[in-house]
């Protein structure tokens, strides 16, 4: 007998991944801190170490509550960076 699957279609996503940079020299490493405990420190130290290693710079640095979507103006500032580091979950 035939039954329906329960999941339905998926709406097309309007986002795509940024390209891979062959080198980070001269690039900007942005940070989106999700404000979970120790996330800001982890991301910042990682970015600083990457910058020291490759000649990149750190910034913009943005912070938001993990439970809310990022405001458009925050995303626009971060889009100035070629690479953004952010955290997921706790």
């Amino acid at each position, binding site marked *: 007998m035939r039954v329906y699957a329960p999941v339905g279609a998926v709406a097309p*996503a309007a986002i795509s991944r940024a390209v*891979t940079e*062959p080198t*980070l020299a001269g690039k900007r490493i942005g940070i989106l801190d999700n404000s979970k405990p120790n996330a800001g420190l982890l991301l910042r130290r990682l970015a600083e170490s*990457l910058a020291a290693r490759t000649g990149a710079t750190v910034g913009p640095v943005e912070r938001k509550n993990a439970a809310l979507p990022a405001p458009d103006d925050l995303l626009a500032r971060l889009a100035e960076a070629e690479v953004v580091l952010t955290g997921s*979950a*706790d």
Partner: protein
Amino acid sequence: MATTSFESLAAGVAETLDLPDLRIVAVEHPLGGIDEAAVIGRAEEAVEPTLRLLTGS
């Protein structure tokens, strides 16, 4: 970035956003409740994997 316990969740959400190749670096769980030195240690351990993901080398 995700901690090891949440790595699969991050990958799953990336999949649902049609970004199966999102670059995810995992650090040891937990991140909350550990001291500053431990956080910095995790950051340093993540440098090489992050570089490889970002530049392919």
